[in-house]
């Protein structure tokens, strides 16, 4: 029986000798390559807790932005800072997105003013991916003096400011100072007394600013908001809550008879918030017999014709 087994083994090796040799050689090569990689330690990447490609405000924890986007963004931002440091105003201006230019720096002079103040001395920066949504990538730059050059001599601690730079990979140009984009809305509410049109919205990372046009169709003055009376006369309606106007108590929105006025209403709303802006609510529209309002001892308006609330939808 032992002879049979030996014979079978011998025949097996004889039959498959080339395959066996090929497997042994292949296995040896794998071991050698593995050892080579270990010895040469190809993974030389610096171990660091600094993860600039992982967005801070992302709901998907630890997920890096695509390498191509990251590398491209780093190059663009490096160029932007370099141009600012070297006071190459035209080149900075050319880098900006068209809407960003129109809204934030209508002329190159306004950009020059900004750069001359912010980049009075040479600045360096650190970059951190902040948030991304679709093709929009938001980066937070922390900008400060070149501390390697100064050694922080004469400074108690590091002084810096944060700047949000937005890159939309579907568009040409970058946006700075947290500017995202501008959207035309042209939604409206109208009745016999007035027409309110929401013309457009300017979106910045921390706020939304709505440009509205109000037409008074009556013979009487209409008040939409008055200073120091209420901060809830005008609200931005989101999915889950209502948001007050920025500096609500400073607003004095009075439209004279048969007149049209335009206003810019700013509400705090972060770009990373998942809530959608649905409407602008006007909670206390007052039509008066004459302006100014006459109040009785109880604080009620005596010369009022009508008071009511409406909302202008932002989505058609």
């Amino acid at each position, binding site marked *: 029986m032992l002879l049979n087994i030996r014979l079978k083994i011998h025949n097996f090796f004889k039959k498959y000798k080339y395959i066996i040799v090929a497997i042994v050689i292949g296995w040896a090569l794998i071991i050698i390559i593995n050892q080579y990689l270990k010895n040469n330690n190809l993974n030389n990447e610096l171990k660091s807790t600094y993860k600039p490609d992982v967005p801070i405000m992302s709901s998907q924890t630890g997920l890096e932005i695509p390498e191509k986007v990251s590398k491209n963004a780093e190059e663009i931002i490096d160029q932007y800072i370099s141009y600012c440091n070297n006071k190459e105003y035209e080149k900075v201006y050319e880098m900006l997105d068209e809407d960003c230019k129109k809204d934030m720096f209508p002329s190159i002079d306004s950009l020059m003013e900004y750069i001359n103040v912010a980049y009075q001395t040479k600045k360096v*920066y650190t970059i951190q991916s902040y948030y991304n949504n679709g093709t929009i990538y938001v980066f937070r730059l922390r900008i400060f003096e070149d501390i*390697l050059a*100064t*050694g922080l001599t004469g400074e108690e601690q590091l002084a810096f400011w944060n700047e949000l730079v937005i890159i939309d990979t579907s568009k040409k140009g970058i946006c700075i100072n947290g500017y995202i984009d501008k959207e035309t809305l042209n939604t409206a509410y109208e009745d016999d007394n007035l027409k309110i049109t929401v013309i457009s919205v300017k979106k910045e990372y921390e706020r939304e600013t709505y440009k509205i046009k109000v037409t008074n169709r009556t013979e009487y003055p209409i008040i939409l908001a008055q200073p120091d009376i209420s901060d809830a006369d005008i609200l931005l309606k989101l999915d889950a809550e209502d948001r007050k106007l920025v500096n609500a108590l400073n607003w004095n929105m009075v439209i004279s008879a048969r007149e049209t006025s335009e206003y810019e209403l700013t509400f705090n709303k972060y770009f990373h918030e998942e809530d959608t802006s649905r409407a602008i609510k006007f909670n206390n529209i007052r039509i008066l017999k004459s302006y100014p309002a006459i109040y009785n001892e109880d604080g009620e308006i005596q010369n009022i014709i009508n008071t009511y609330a409406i909302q202008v939808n932002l989505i058609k």
Partner: protein
Amino acid sequence: MTVKKISIILIIIIFIVMLIYLVFREGSNKENITANETSIVSDAEKKANEEEIKVLKTMTEKERIKRYLSNYMMLIEAKQYEKAYNLLYPEFKQNYFQDMEKYQSYAEEKYPATMVLSYSNIERQGHYFIIYVNIIDPLEEKEYISQKFIIYENDYNDYIVSFEVL
């Protein structure tokens, strides 16, 4: 087995043996024993750097930064001012120590002969590390000076130093 097949197998075996030799051999150290002092020193430095990198790779980021600062201060302690000077950021040197002699005078005046570092805080901004240090003279057993250092790490054992000029 034909001669052809045997030859093929032998060639493959020789190839594997050569590959094993190339992979497992030590780093090149082929200098002649009579090579001049400079090449032997640079080889020793190269080896020391490789050993240092191996150690640094086992450390956390904070430990690495402390080690860089410690190594820098040890150069000053050992009066190796040129090596310490070469670690400084070029623009920093232009601003404060245009030549090595100025730097050496500063170091001799400011720092005690032997030093112990006590870290009060390490702050990080991207690749920049700001280290708040109390430099203690162990012989006097008292705090000598408090100083801020800035270290920028490019890679393992590849860093730039700058400091608050007191």
